[in-house]
């Protein structure tokens, strides 16, 4: 029992070290993380099987939150249960947290310096561009027929012109999805729920940086 406890502790330590190192490399974006995790966890440590990476991508992409943090939680949980997930998430978040804190302190120190304000304005414009890029990329994967196009545009219209809270939209999406697919089945139409993997792969390189 004691030996097992020690093993468990060792795994937790190693999880911490690996994900702490991977944290800053999320500069490559959430999906660049996946390649890095594959290298560390599958190739070097042989902790996961190569095909488990596919599971990781699908869980990390469908749960709420960032792909990087979600992947860490997945690997941690697979290796060392709930404690492993908590340690991995803590480790991957810590470096970013510290960087944000430093930026924040610097930002407050220099916030009245006109040129710092100017730089932030420039970054603001670039962030708008990155949001548009994210919308284009996720749109390519999600808008595959007329119903999905209507859902997306209806969602934008509702957000722009009504005070509707986005929570209701997020709850409504799955309801609409299930209903549409059910109706399509009844009508005997083909009911595809995902784009073919091949179409999506091309977009994965930079898909949703910061996610």
């Amino acid at each position: 029992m004691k030996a097992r406890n020690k093993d468990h502790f060792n795994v937790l330590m190693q999880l911490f070290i690996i994900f702490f190192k991977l944290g800053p490399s999320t500069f490559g974006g959430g999906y660049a993380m996946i390649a890095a995790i594959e290298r560390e966890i599958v190739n070097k440590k042989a902790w996961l099987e190569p095909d488990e990476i596919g599971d990781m991508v699908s869980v990390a992409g469908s749960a709420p939150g960032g792909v990087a943090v979600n992947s860490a939680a997945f690997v941690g949980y697979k290796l060392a249960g709930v404690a492993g997930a908590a340690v991995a998430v803590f480790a991957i978040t810590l470096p970013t947290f510290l960087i944000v804190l430093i930026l924040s302190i610097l930002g407050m120190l220099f916030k009245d310096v006109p040129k710092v304000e100017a730089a932030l304005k420039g970054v603001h414009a670039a962030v708008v561009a990155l949001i548009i890029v994210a919308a284009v990329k996720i749109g390519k994967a999600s808008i595959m027929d007329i119903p999905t196009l209507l859902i997306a545009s209806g969602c934008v219209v509702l957000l722009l012109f009504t005070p509707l809270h986005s929570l209701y939209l997020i709850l409504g999406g799955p309801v609409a999805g299930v209903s549409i697919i059910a109706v399509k089945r009844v009508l005997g139409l083909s009911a595809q729920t995902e784009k073919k993997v091949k179409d999506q792969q091309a977009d994965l390189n930079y898909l949703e940086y910061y996610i």
Partner: protein
Amino acid sequence: MLGELFVLFLKVGLISFGGGYAVIALIQREITEKGWVTAGQFQELVALAGMAPGSIATNTATLIGYSQMGVIGGIVSTIGIILPSLLIVILFTAFFLRMKSNTWVRSSFYGLRPIITGLIIYAAIHFGIGSTNGSWVSWSAAGMILICVASLIAVLKYKIHPFAVILLSAVGGIVLF
């Protein structure tokens, strides 16, 4: 206040499907309603959040927490926004993988994904219009549009890394404004 920060970001974390961008507008709405920061301050915080690695929503949560309650506020907000991801990933890993091919699950995501797209488009509109402070015919607005379009071309056409684009646009801002 700490409790409020925690609950707010817990809620945001729970619905942050599709990652960071989809919930930016939601965070702004919630915290400006509470009167914690103004729309202008919020935009600066998001720009700052964009300069660090990691999810922009999580970084924004850290910054808002820090601006309201110092380091403790930052920690509490960060934990709040990440905790739902952690729990849901554990649940998904334990159960969802077995239901991956389930029609209900697939149809739900079929409907959810376009909603996320809509939320991100809205975030772009909202955040983009806010950046001009209402006036479109000004040096400032023209500069913002210029940097935004240049960034779009850099990322989409020339595949320049987003972080390099962020740094270049900071330089652009210093030159233009």
